[in-house]
């Protein structure tokens, strides 16, 4: 332990501390204010490691769950979700050397078999107390567990019985009884105890005849007891005499001062410090919840807190008083946050080499708030421009003030320590014994016994293992620890799903022509790649064979800062990695200007009224008047709770009546390139013709829609409606930065309709016929409403087609609602599509509905390729479908662009769901029910808790945690080339954060990327079910469904659905 350095701050100390802090900040959650929810890999800090390595490290650092639990996996095995082949394959991949571990006559136990047994049968470490319980209450030593396979059990009992009899028949007189008694004895028993134990087991006097009868009567008890005695004897003698090394407490790796004190005193300084920190941090970062904001926020967190403490009355809690005194001193000196940290670190005696670890553990005491502070420091654009400055150093400085005060207080009052804090670890840390957990004798015996029983090794065979054999098995068992078992299980779990999908795709491909497009399409619909649009596309195609669908990233290639008619500010509608350079606004039509003005005025009035009511009812005098008249609130409350759908429609109607919406236009045209107008915000106003042509070109090329245009083409963005849902943004379009994608679709269609854009496209080789018209639209993934924009512009010749399309959409969205309802336990069974539609509309309007929709909960697959290879394949809303035509991509530039857009967004969503599901309490934010919106930044649990990040349980509960199975129509060489050029893609692929599969565009041959690069995949010849419609396949099922081929009968599909 190094001596506390002199209390002075010099440049290198400061730099050193800031650098360590910078590194530590990586491990904090990176979630911004919750109004805009961006899905990202929860373990982004570990992205440079391979998936499994990252999980191992994160598990060690955060104390989180790595994968599903072993019990859950075993349950999946019992259900057939994981098969024996999956497990064998996963073991084989992981363990190339199937060495023989122990050989006895007639039996060789190999490493792979041992691993399989350890996975399929609970063989975890057992505590001494647990073992005592098992022996006394669960008859561990006389009865076989019910997970022992029947065959093994029969062998165990048969041979155990023979063994017992043979011992009993040995010699003359009492000799046999003694031999049997000693064979069944626990090590250390004297002969009398052994005989007594035998008598107890037999429920008879220890005499030869009585014992022989007892063995006949209950052979299992003797056989099992003999095995248990053997295992005890083997492990007893195999005792590892070197006791595990013990050492004192080390700051950093073993924790902070708080951990030492918690261990020594049972009291937690975090209980004190966290409450203060959360009160101050939320008051400081609050974006407008509090009526009375914190003063002096412009000074920064540290200075504001210091000023607050200085001007406040003396705190009542004794531990806080030293903090207040210190702050007063510091206020006089006017020090900086970083000075404070340097001094505090010195005072606490944290050695230089563990500084970063110490800081990480300090920050992880309240990762939510620390993470928010750090995130806002790095991303000022997450908040309005006039927000107070955020700084993690400030946060740590304040934390250290309270942390030291609490440590000092606890050390003095409980441990009686009045010396310098740096001496605390020296004085008390030695007496703490930190030791690596090593299995004791009892545990070794237990595990060996469990192994022998499930492997069907009877007592005599166990004896033949010898000490060395037993030891070898145990070493292997311990080495194949829980993390390794769960990792292997996880691989098996993923493998099953992967094979199911790849096999289905292989079979499906035999029935379709990959290069086939719909001949003479009547409609084309371009949706987001979102997994939730898979069903809508499928239903549309089932309803109208001459309808063709495409999937494009939901911002449709137009990255923009958009301000809608009703929006206060511009919002970036594009993937988060892009910063838009264009600005687009929605403006009222000139003729409707008066209407617009009236509307604005009324909205302002309404806002003021609602605001005064909301604030007034919470205040004192106004509150008295308002609440006295408050009985009126019973009307909206009752109607919204009892009749959600009807009251939602009523509100809609009222708002249409009182606030009629003018016709609007997007202002997006910029006439000449040279006269680029800039907005006040320094962005380009609208797109120039060249830019429009560029964007249209890249969108059409990207999805492979360069010829065979239908007369009517719809660009369909998406968003989601829900009530009482702080996480609402997490349901919106990920490719639009957690916003609704309608405006992008609308703008994209508008661009494509411009004659000058068409001319430009023609010049570049894409000939969109005069008769083709594009329409933008929006799909509400919760209420399944579909809105089309600017339909008044549709040329006369297309109006009939438009009406037809409207009818198709109405049928398709009802069927989509119908398919979605199968996953809701609370939805009516056997509903018609129309009833299902009403049900999902009610869900979207229901105040009490925590599951307005399932979000991305079922995501598992991402297919980049032509629709022909998936059209007619039931993918159960589990697949991101990005359209990509490898045949028209000559230099892989489209592939590169597509993977760059789809990979990070898809993997971000997939991994966020993965981790939020696997450890919902720590990676996710737990159940929604006690959530409490705080500071307009996020949610906490109930009265006071850390800011909760990640996804709530209600969002993920039906998720299957598998890495995104990304299937791309490109050769391995092309994929590797793209990965080589794009570090983002490389990290995902090479570190295996996604499962990448290459499908050869011409032959359809598949190769799976693994440890040894791309390995050919030979599909199993499976029978892919064939049904005539999606409804026929999913009707009556609530669980995940396997793929099926949908081959429509000629007509009357919709009627079949009813």
């Amino acid at each position: 332990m190094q001596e506390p350095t002199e209390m002075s701050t010099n440049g290198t100390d400061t730099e050193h501390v800031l650098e360590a802090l910078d590194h530590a900040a990586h491990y904090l959650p990176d979630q911004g204010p919750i109004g805009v929810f961006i899905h990202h890999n929860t373990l982004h800090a570990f992205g440079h490691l391979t998936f499994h390595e990252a999980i191992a490290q994160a598990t060690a650092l955060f104390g989180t769950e790595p994968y599903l639990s072993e019990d859950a996996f075993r349950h999946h095995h019992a259900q057939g979700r994981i098969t024996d082949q999956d497990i064998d394959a996963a073991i084989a991949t992981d363990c190339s050397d199937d060495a023989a571990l122990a050989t006895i006559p007639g039996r060789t136990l190999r490493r792979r078999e041992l691993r399989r047994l350890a996975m399929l049968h609970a063989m975890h470490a057992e505590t001494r107390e647990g073992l005592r319980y098992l022996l006394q209450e669960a008859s561990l030593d006389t009865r076989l567990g019910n997970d022992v396979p029947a065959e093994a059990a029969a062998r165990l009992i048969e041979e155990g019985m023979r063994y017992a009899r043979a011992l009993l028949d040995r010699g003359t007189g009492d000799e046999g009884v003694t031999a049997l008694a000693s064979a069944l004895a626990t090590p250390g028993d004297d002969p009398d105890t052994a005989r007594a134990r035998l008598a107890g087991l037999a429920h008879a006097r220890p005499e030869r005849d009585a014992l022989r009868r007892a063995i006949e009567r209950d052979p299992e008890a003797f056989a099992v007891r003999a095995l248990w005695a053997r295992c005890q004897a083997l492990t007893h003698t195999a005792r590892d005499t070197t006791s595990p090394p013990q050492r004192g407490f080390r700051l950093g790796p073993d924790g902070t001062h708080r951990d030492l004190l918690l261990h020594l005193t049972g009291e937690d300084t975090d209980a004190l410090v966290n409450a203060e920190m959360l009160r101050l941090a939320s008051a400081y970062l609050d974006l407008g919840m509090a009526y009375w904001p914190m003063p002096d926020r412009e000074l920064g967190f540290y200075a504001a807190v210091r000023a607050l403490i200085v001007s406040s009355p003396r705190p009542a809690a004794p531990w806080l008083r030293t903090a207040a005194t210190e702050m007063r001193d510091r206020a006089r000196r006017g020090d900086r946050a970083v000075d404070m940290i340097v001094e505090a670190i010195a005072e606490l005696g944290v050695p230089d080499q563990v500084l970063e670890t110490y800081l990480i553990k300090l920050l992880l005491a309240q990762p939510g708030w620390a993470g928010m502070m750090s995130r806002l420091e790095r991303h000022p654009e997450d908040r309005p421009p006039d927000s107070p400055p955020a700084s993690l150093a400030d946060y740590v400085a304040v934390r250290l003030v309270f942390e030291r005060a609490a440590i000092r207080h606890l050390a003095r009052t409980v441990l009686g320590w009045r010396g310098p804090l740096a001496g605390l670890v020296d004085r008390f840390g030695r007496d703490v014994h930190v030791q690596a957990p090593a299995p004791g004798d009892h545990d070794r015996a237990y595990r060996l016994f469990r192994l022998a029983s499930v492997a069907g090794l009877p007592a005599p065979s166990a004896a033949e293992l010898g000490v060395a054999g037993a030891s070898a098995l145990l070493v292997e068992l311990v080495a194949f620890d829980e993390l390794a078992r769960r990792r292997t299980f996880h691989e098996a779990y993923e493998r099953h799903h992967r094979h199911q999908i790849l096999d289905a795709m292989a079979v499906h491909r035999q029935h379709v022509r990959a290069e086939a497009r719909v001949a003479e399409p009547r409609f084309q619909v371009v949706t987001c790649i979102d997994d939730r649009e898979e069903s809508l596309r499928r239903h549309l195609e089932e309803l109208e064979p001459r309808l063709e669908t495409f999937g494009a990233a939901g911002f449709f290639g137009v990255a923009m800062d958009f301000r809608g008619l009703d929006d206060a500010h511009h919002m970036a509608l594009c993937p988060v990695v892009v910063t838009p350079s264009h600005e687009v606004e929605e403006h009222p039509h000139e003729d409707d200007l008066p209407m617009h003005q009236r509307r604005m005025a009324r909205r302002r009035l309404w806002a003021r009224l609602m605001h005064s009511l909301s604030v007034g009812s919470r205040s004192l005098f106004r509150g008295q008047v308002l609440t006295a008249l408050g009985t009126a609130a019973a009307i909206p409350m009752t109607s919204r709770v009892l009749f959600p759908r009807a009251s939602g429609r009523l509100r809609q109607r009222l708002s249409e009546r009182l606030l009629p919406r003018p016709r609007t236009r997007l202002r997006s045209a910029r006439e000449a390139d040279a006269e680029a107008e800039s907005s006040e915000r320094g962005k380009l106003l609208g797109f120039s013709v060249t830019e429009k042509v560029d964007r249209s070109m890249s969108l059409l090329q990207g999805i492979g829609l360069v010829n065979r245009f239908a007369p009517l083409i719809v660009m369909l963005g998406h968003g989601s409606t829900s009530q009482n849902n702080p996480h609402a943004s997490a349901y919106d379009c990920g490719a639009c930065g957690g916003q609704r994608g309608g405006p992008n679709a609308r703008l994209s269609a508008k661009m494509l309709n411009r004659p000058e854009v068409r001319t430009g496209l023609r010049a570049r080789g894409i000939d969109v016929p005069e008769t083709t018209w594009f329409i933008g639209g929006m799909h509400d993934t919760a209420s399944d409403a579909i809105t089309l924009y600017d339909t008044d512009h549709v040329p006369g010749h297309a109006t009939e087609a438009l009406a037809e399309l409207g009818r198709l959409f109405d049928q398709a969205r009802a069927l989509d609602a119908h398919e979605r309802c199968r996953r809701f336990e609370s939805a009516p069974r056997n509903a018609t599509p129309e009833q299902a539609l009403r049900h999902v509309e009610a869900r979207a309007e229901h105040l009490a509905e925590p599951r307005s929709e399932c979000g991305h909960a079922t995501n598992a697959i991402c297919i980049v390729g032509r629709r022909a290879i998936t059209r007619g394949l039931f993918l159960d809303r589990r697949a991101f479908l990005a359209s990509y035509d490898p045949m028209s991509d000559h230099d892989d530039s489209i592939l590169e662009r597509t993977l760059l857009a789809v990979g990070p967004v898809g993997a971000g969503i997939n991994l966020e769901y993965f981790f939020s599901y696997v450890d919902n309490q720590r990676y996710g934010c737990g159940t929604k029910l006690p959530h409490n919106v705080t500071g307009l930044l996020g949610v906490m649990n109930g009265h006071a808790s850390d800011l909760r990040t990640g996804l709530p349980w209600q969002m993920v509960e039906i998720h299957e945690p598998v890495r995104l199975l990304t299937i791309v129509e490109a050769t391995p060489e092309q994929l590797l080339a793209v990965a080589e050029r794009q570090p983002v893609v490389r990290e995902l692929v090479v570190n295996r954060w996604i499962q990448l599969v290459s499908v050869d565009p011409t032959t359809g041959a598949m190769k799976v990327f693994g440890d040894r690069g791309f390995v050919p995949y030979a599909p199993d010849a499976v029978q892919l079910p064939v049904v005539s419609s999606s409804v026929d396949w999913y009707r009556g099922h609530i669980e995940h469904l396997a793929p099926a081929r949908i081959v429509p009968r000629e007509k009357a599909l919709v009627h079949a659905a009813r």
Partner: protein
Amino acid sequence: MLHDNHLALVAAAVLGLPAAAFLGLGGFMFLVRAPSERFIARLTTLVFGLALIGSLVTLGNVLLGPQHLIKIHIGRWFELPGYAFEVTLVIDRLTATFMVLTTAIIGLIGRFSQTYLHRERGYARFFLLVHLFATGMLLLVMAGSVDMMFAGWEFVGLTSVLLIGFFDERNGPVRNGLRAFVTYRVCDACLLMGVVLVHHYAHTAQVDLALGAGQWPLGAAHLGQFPATLIAVLFTLGAIGKSAQFPASGWLPRAMEGPTPSSALFYGALSVHAGVYLLLRTAPVFEAAPVARGLLVVVGTLSALYATLVGRTQTDAKNGLAYATITQVGLLFIEIGLGLYVLAVVHMVGHVCVRTFQYLKAPSALHESHLLHAAAGGVHLTTGAHIESILPLRVQRWLYGLALARFHIDEMLDGVAHAVLALARRLDVLNRYFAALYGSAPADRASAAPAPAPAPAAKPFDAKMVRSARS
């Protein structure tokens, strides 16, 4: 118009329905298993639907009928020489109003919770407690004697505590539930003393006999000024606890740990107004006790000022609502203290409706704020800013710090509690010393020896355990 006997039957059924549902559901859960969600949901809807109809019928009859007070004899529990415990219910305008309010709000929130708690572990437990709460609340409201009122009061407190600790896998809810429990215990002790004194001075616990039989609130208590004052002060102390008034307010914001609808039901709607009901019911006693009325006004004023200041600094939806509730309940105390009973009832019913709705919509805070901000044209909406305009900057800062720290009230109460505990511990030591001195049983002596403190170093340091304690 129903005959009195029939009305009595209807009113008794309103109380009996949730009680029967609680017993039936509880018995089934205890003996068999938790029934399906669907069954519980239907049962709850049925029970509160019928109870609401019964309550409305009762209210209609009481308002229109000739009699201002109907007494229902259920039976006699036990009899001693000179005393008999009569189980009675009393129906008058106040009671009937509260019956309607109680059944309507619980029914509504029950309906809300059926969707909100879908698939939650503890679904059945939640509704079991809601039925027990309804029983307690209705018993409190309809009780014909102060003893029974106390029994209902205790059920309300118990269910409140159990629902604060609903998420019992985390520390916070359990700790905060305990805090509410302790606050209740202390204040309920005062109420219990008051109840005993009613027996002592009025020789009966029957509401109509002891507290006045006139048309509510005009009845006159059959008590002298001193007993009336003593009893009224004790009732006030009891009401302070349940209604989270100064200085026992700290538990209410901490009670926001349960699922959102239980916060709405207990702390927006009914439980927090139970103290107000107690004061209204016993208004005749307060009429005879000007000192106690003065105390009500003082407590109400302090609570309202304290809560409105603290509430202004709260940065989250539910804590903000908790302090807003305390503010208005403080005003209700003042109104009752000033004798404005009808205003208090109207104010209270309105407050229940507004606050319950606000609690139910608490998770929308973010959405609503964005919506209003946009509708206002992107400007930051402010109202009032009265404190800022009146007080000098220094005082503002001082006050802000005080308000953000919630006036340190909880810490001070903790200090008092620790002092009491320390005193109790010393008295205990003294007691043992004397007991040992005068030779008590050896067993006692053994336990009198101070237990050796467990050696802290004996247990191995487990990094994993420590970390999980953090979360």
